[in-house]
């Protein structure tokens, strides 16, 4: 775009170069009147508010002398360099026309000063200033005296400056004069004075102060501010209008040459009268007139003029002015095409202000009660660039007027020369008009669409860009016009933005860079700033960022005399979007867009800027951000360097996880270091086993199947299973733990302090942790904390404090390589008590084991079989919650029955001690008994029925002629009452209830019985479930106390047998007792008798016993009902007959065996529980159903008693039998047999030659009724001396019927088929009667 012929006509720089570019200029400003608004004197506190209000009066409508409504636009500036004023001839909109001062004074001196400053300002811009207003805010609301307002000043100015136009001025048309006078006489001062209270003190303005001055008190809302400003504009317009008319009436031939400031020297010595020069003058004047026309609101006219001027200037190669003419043409076209350009203030803001300021609404309601059209407009207003799709240049015809008023206006404008009645009326009613016009100025300008829109010179969008391009090229030929060119570029760019043509805009903006200007550093920065802004508007964010960064570096470049780090910082900060950086580190990490190398550079620079700016917190924040977001793009060395830098920065100000708010209101979100240290795993831990809560009522499992391939859609458990929801529970007020694995990625040792857990939900007290991480080695860290409430606890992450930066590392924001759940949810239940258990085993040397926290507490107890001891558990409540529920259960590898015998405790006793208040202690006593089976079966097999009975070597059947025990059917009579296992077949296949477990061959099967000969280790867990507090209904804690019980063998009964005693009602139980201990044992087998057994020795002891009463039902039921039932329950399906059980019980009960280890003073008991008895043994054990009464020579014989007689003596043997059964016995065969016992197991029944008997030795009793007695007598003579024995027995030939069958038998006699000759049961008189015969 640059002209290749640069600097054709330019001079050396230095003189009157316009050196203050105005980057904010828009094309539409060509049509604006420039007004300076200045605050002077003391600072007004509502200055900005007033400034905004003034700014809104940027457009008024004035009806001109011909009745045409002119649309006048104003541009207000706060500051304007006088040098730029010099370019006013070149482009008239650069002239400062009006002055408004807002001042504050408190006394006369200040007032004088304020007036002086105002006047001096007027002098400063005296070249161009037409009118001024002074708003003065005094201490009290009163109006100082002022000389009557005149236009003398104005006229003085005019006369001094433009004496040539003086005559013209007064030759204004009369109607214009009228309107002028009407404007003059506009009673603004009067109205303001009336609105003011009565003055109390007189302030007087100095005499040389000749300005419209309005006085208010400081807090006056200044209701007529807009009115006064509008008034000023009105007056300015008339001056401009007069100038325009004046210019338009000049004689073309006589015009003087207008010059740009730097051109003055160029024309020295040139022939001003040349034809060329004449044309040049003409062209320039035309251009000037066009400017004025444009300013005075006649845009359409200006188009023609600009075009004409351009034509003329082109012919004389006056490039500079040609360019200006083209620019003007472009500006005028743009104004017509893009009316939206003229509404720079955002509409929304207007609306909000209107609602907020009361006086505003009031005045609006006064004059314009219906504001709906405005609202509607606001809604429907569519700036061209709001929609990308719309073509850049709308055809003008599409711009429909939005209100009737605009139609009116346009119609009026179309009929320029037609002064109809309405326009006349409006001109006469100018006061109203001007008032109204001001209010209309509030409204967005109606898209003005004069009928001349079809003006042939109107440029369309493309042409505007093209013309502007040409103008810029022309400008570029003049070095001194650099500023003009720059401004033109910006203006063109703005139009291009409006046209939505980014490429054009960017090319215009790009051109700005090439313009070589000697600018102050500040202006250069401003240039970049403006560039950045425009680039942003067209969406060139990267470009904008680039410019911003350049501006930022300029701010602090060494050339800059006063570096401003703060602005540098903000510029850098605002260039973030262009670098695809967000202030939020998480966003950056997630999206990873942009160019890392540039981002790193920018971030490093911004860190420096923040530090130099004196905001160490920001520096730390940005450095953290850099380290966090750019971590993957940095090398190891850079990691190290940056980390060290961060440490240095944070030494000045610690970084925290709180957003930082800048002075501009921007918020810098926290940056958290999640890479340092790097977390590779994060998992909440369930509470340790003793503290883990258990549901009080364990729910039954879902089913017996661990795995099922069947899925029930809606019943699917996984479906509603919340991910991240932990299955275990945490307990309120209890320490909880999260395990994490951390790695230090930096090559030096890293100290991470104050590590805590981040949670939400219930209150959680985290315990800070400090660790030192060595480089590059994963370390496991446990973080602890205590929940303080009941409910759901979410663990969101953890916080660290490292490198001087506090970070909140949330799991959801963790860097990608490690996938974490966004949060872990754990349910916290009400606090539960905790206990400690102290176990004291009382007698055996008091093994005291204090078990703190119940972890792995084991009590070892050694017991001999049969020994009993006490174990007391002291349960101490160590929490603040009372224990209200306590339940002790025992779990061991024994079966329940045995277990309940080994461990005995009273549940009532425990419950009585509840509740256990905090720090109180409860004691649970538990009795331990070395329960064992003392009968040693010695690896018994099933076949041998009575392996331990002493059949082989015990004379239990002394003199018994029964040849075969197995084949000889029992002569046992059955007792209906004793039947316990009714209906069971009496075929015993197993000797004892032990066999019930014989099928459980696995060694891990519960121990039911201790084999007496071996020691057994019993591992027992005492499970103490306890609870308390509010959650006691649902959850409890469980403590486990391990008791290792070692049961040592004490005694064992290896064999046993029964012997009849001397008295028929008694018997001897003969036991082979083995001492299995290593000590000498004192074995008590009756209360009075005891025997010493050496270690490992065996002894045979007789235990006298009463015979089992024949009718023992009651006793059995009363005493041993428990046992019986248990026996039954264990021996399910066992074929143990009730009868044998009864006998066995009888024996067990009445045998009281006690042992005492002499050395270690240990006492214990033994029992013969579970003893098995054979059929024959049972006959001995049991009372006979038949009661014998045997007498010799009418002398009753006692058991074991020996009767002596001499050979040949006649003995009369009487045998009486009572039937004790409750039924009659039939077919009884009572027999008396003599035999000789050789005491070697051989009985000799062949005694034919040794004795002789008289009388029957065998009688058959057909029937023996119950309780009846049968008596039989016979006589015997012993022929040779010797030892004889008499076997007296009674047998029945009835079939073997026991128990129920017998019962049934008795009921149904007929059904019994007596089977003669068959011996079914034999009762003997025991012991046999022994007779020693002597010579």
């Amino acid at each position, binding site marked *: 775009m640059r002209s290749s012929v640069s600097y054709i006509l330019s001079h050396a720089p230095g003189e009157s170069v316009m050196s203050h570019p105005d980057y904010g200029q828009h094309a539409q400003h060509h049509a604006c009147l420039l007004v300076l608004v200045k605050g002077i004197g003391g600072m007004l506190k509502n200055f900005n508010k007033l400034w905004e209000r003034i700014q809104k009066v940027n457009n008024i409508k004035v009806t001109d002398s011909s009745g045409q409504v002119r649309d006048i636009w104003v541009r207000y500036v706060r500051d304007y360099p006088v040098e730029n004023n010099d370019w006013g001839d070149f482009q008239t909109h650069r002239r400062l026309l009006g002055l408004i001062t807002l001042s504050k004074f408190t006394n006369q001196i200040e007032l004088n000063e304020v007036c002086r400053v105002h006047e001096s300002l007027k002098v400063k811009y005296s070249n161009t200033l037409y009118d001024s207003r002074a708003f003065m805010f005094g201490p009290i609301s009163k109006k100082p005296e002022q000389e009557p307002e005149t236009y003398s000043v104005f006229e003085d100015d005019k006369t001094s400056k433009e004496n040539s136009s003086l005559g013209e001025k007064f030759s204004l048309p009369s109607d214009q004069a009228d309107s002028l006078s009407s404007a003059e006489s506009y009673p603004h001062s009067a109205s303001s004075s009336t609105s003011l209270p009565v003055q109390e003190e007189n302030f007087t303005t100095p005499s040389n102060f000749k300005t419209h001055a309005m006085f208010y008190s400081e807090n006056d809302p200044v209701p007529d501010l807009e009115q006064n400003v509008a008034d000023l504009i009105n007056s300015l317009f008339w001056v401009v209008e007069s100038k325009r008319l004046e210019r338009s009436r000049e004689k073309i031939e006589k015009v003087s040459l207008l010059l740009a400031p730097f051109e003055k020297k160029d024309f020295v010595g040139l022939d001003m009268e040349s034809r060329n020069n004449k044309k040049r003058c003409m062209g320039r004047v035309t251009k000037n007139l066009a400017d004025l026309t444009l300013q005075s609101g006649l845009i359409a006219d200006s188009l023609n003029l600009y075009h004409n001027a351009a034509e003329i200037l082109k012919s004389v190669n006056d490039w500079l002015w040609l360019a200006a003419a083209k620019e003007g043409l472009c500006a005028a076209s743009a104004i017509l095409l893009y009316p939206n350009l003229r509404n720079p203030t955002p509409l929304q803001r207007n609306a909000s202000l209107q609602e907020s300021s009361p006086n505003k609404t009031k005045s609006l309601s006064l004059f314009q009660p219906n504001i709906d059209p405005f609202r509607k407009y606001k809604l429907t207003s569519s700036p061209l660039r709001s929609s990308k799709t719309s073509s850049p240049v709308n055809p003008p015809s599409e711009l429909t007027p939005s209100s009737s008023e605009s139609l009116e206006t346009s119609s009026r404008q179309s009929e320029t020369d037609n002064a109809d009645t309405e326009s006349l009326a409006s001109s006469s009613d100018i006061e109203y008009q001007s008032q109204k016009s001001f209010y209309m100025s509030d409204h967005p300008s109606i898209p003005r669409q004069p009928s001349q829109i079809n003006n042939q010179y109107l440029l369309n969008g493309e042409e505007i860009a093209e013309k502007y391009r040409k103008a810029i090229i022309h400008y570029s030929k003049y070095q001194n016009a650099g500023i003009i060119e720059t401004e033109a570029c910006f203006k063109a760019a703005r139009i291009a933005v409006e046209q939505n043509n980014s490429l054009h805009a*960017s090319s215009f903006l790009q051109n700005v860079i090439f313009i070589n200007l000697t600018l102050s550093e500040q202006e250069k920065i401003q240039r970049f700033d403006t560039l950045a802004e425009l680039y942003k508007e067209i969406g060139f964010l990267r470009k904008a960022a680039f410019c911003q960064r350049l501006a930022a570096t300029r701010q602090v470049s060494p050339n800059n005399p006063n570096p401003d780090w703060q602005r540098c910082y903000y510029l850098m900060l605002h260039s973030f979007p262009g670098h695809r950086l967000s202030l939020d580190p998480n966003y950056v990490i997630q999206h990873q867009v942009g160019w890392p190398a540039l981002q790193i550079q920018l971030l490093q620079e911004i860190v420096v800027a923040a530090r130099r700016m004196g905001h160490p917190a920001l520096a730390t924040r940005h450095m953290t951000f850099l380290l966090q977001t750019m971590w993957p793009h940095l090398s190891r060395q850079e990691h190290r360097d940056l980390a060290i830098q961060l440490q240095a920065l944070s030494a000045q100000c610690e970084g925290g996880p709180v957003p930082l708010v800048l002075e501009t209101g921007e918020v810098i979100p926290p940056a958290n270091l999640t890479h340092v240290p790097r977390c590779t795993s994060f998992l909440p831990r369930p509470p340790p086993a003793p503290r883990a809560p258990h549901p009080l009522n364990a729910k039954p499992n879902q089913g017996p199947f661990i795995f099922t391939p069947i899925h029930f859609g809606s019943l699917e458990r996984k479906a509603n299973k919340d991910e991240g929801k932990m299955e275990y529970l945490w307990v309120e007020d209890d320490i909880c733990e999260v395990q994490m694995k951390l790695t230090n990625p930096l090559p030096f040792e890293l100290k991470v302090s104050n590590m805590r857990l981040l949670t939400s939900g219930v209150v959680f007290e985290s315990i800070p942790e400090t660790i030192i991480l060595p480089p590059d080695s994963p370390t496991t860290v446990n973080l602890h904390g205590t929940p303080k409430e009941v409910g759901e606890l979410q663990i969101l992450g953890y916080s660290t404090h490292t490198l001087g930066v506090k970070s909140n590392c949330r799991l959801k924001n963790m860097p990608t390589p490690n996938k974490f759940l966004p949060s872990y949810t754990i349910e916290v239940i009400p606090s539960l008590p905790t206990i400690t258990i102290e176990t004291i085993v009382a007698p055996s040397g008091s093994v005291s084991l204090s078990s703190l926290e119940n972890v792995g507490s084991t009590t070892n107890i050694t017991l001999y079989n049969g020994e009993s001891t006490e174990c007391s558990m002291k349960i101490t409540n160590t929490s603040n919650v009372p224990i209200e529920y306590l339940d002790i259960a025992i779990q061991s590898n024994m079966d329940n029955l045995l277990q309940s015998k080994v461990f005995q405790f009273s549940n009532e006793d425990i419950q009585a001690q509840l509740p256990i208040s905090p720090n109180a202690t409860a004691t649970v006593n538990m009795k331990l008994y070395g329960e064992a089976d003392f009968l040693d079966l010695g690896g018994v097999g099933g076949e041998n029925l009575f392996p331990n009975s002493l059949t082989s070597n015990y004379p239990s059947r002394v003199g018994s002629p029964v040849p075969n025990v197995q084949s000889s059917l029992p002569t046992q009579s059955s007792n209906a009452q004793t039947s316990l296992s009714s209906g069971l077949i009496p075929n015993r296949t197993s000797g004892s209830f032990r066999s019930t477990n014989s099928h459980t061959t696995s060694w891990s099967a519960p121990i039911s019985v201790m084999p007496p000969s071996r020691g057994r280790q019993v591992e027992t867990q005492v499970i103490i479930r306890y609870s308390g507090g509010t959650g006691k209904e649902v959850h409890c804690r469980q403590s486990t106390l391990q008791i290792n019980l070692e049961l040592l063998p004490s005694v064992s009964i290896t064999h046993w047998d029964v012997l009849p005693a001397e008295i028929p009602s008694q018997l001897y139980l003969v036991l082979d007792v083995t001492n299995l201990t290593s000590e000498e044992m004192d074995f008590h087998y009756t209360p009075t008798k005891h025997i010493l057994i050496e270690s490992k020795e065996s002894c045979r002891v007789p235990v006298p016993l009463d015979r089992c009463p024949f009718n023992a039902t009651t006793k059995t039921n009363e005493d041993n009902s428990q046992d019986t039932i248990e026996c039954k329950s264990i021996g399910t399906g066992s074929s143990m007959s009730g009868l044998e059980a009864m006998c066995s019980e009888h024996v067990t009960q009445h045998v009281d065996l006690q042992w005492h280890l002499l050395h270690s003073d240990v006492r214990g008991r033994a029992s013969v529980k579970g003893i098995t008895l054979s059929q024959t043994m049972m006959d001995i054990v049991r009372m006979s159903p038949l009661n014998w009464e045997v007498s010799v020579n009418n002398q009753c014989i006692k058991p074991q008693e020996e009767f002596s007689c001499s050979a040949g003596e006649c003995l009369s043997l009487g045998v009486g039998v009572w039937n004790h059964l409750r039924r009659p016995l039939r077919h009884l065969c009572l027999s008396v047999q003599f035999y000789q016992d050789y005491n070697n197991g051989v009985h000799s029944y062949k005694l034919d030659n040794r004795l002789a008997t008289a009388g029957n030795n065998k009688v058959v009793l057909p029937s023996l009724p119950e309780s009846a007695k049968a008596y039989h007598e016979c006589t015997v003579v012993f022929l040779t001396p010797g030892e004889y024995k008499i076997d007296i027995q009674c047998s029945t030939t009835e079939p073997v019927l026991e128990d129920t069958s017998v019962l049934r038998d008795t009921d149904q006699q007929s059904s019994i088929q007596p089977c003669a000759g068959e011996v079914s049961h034999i009762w003997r008189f025991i012991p046999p009667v022994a007779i020693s015969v002597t010579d």
Partner: protein
Amino acid sequence: MAVCVAVIGKDNSPLYIGGVGNDTSTDNELSRQWLVHTALDALEERLATSNSNTTNSNTNNTRTDLRDLYLGLLYSTDTHKIYGYVTNTRIKLVLVTSSTSPSGSNIRDAEVRTALRRLHALYADAICNPFHLPGDQITSSKFDKQVKNLMLNNV
């Protein structure tokens, strides 16, 4: 002469930036990145407009939719000129020439065009590598060598 060549992915992430210069200091590298990075705006805009143009006019020339891959001069600074080229898969190739050096001041458009075409071919060769993941940075040393060669000799 060409001073820098950049390959930019369709998400505007840098795939390759290679430059020749007097020094290979990081400063130089950074300034090249700035140059290329700021060119992306213009490049994208141009792409968008050319696309909308084709969509507007695709009724009559759907068959000849082959837009020119070469985008021409993107922008220029005092010292550099930046040219753009976009492949059909939206891979952007950017070539930066130095306008200060004697040979680079009056470089012809056609030269740049051919250079970029050759670069396109080189790029296509480079990503033919079955071990190259599209979207990853190009680390091929052969590509680097060829590109450097191209910059020195061709333009």
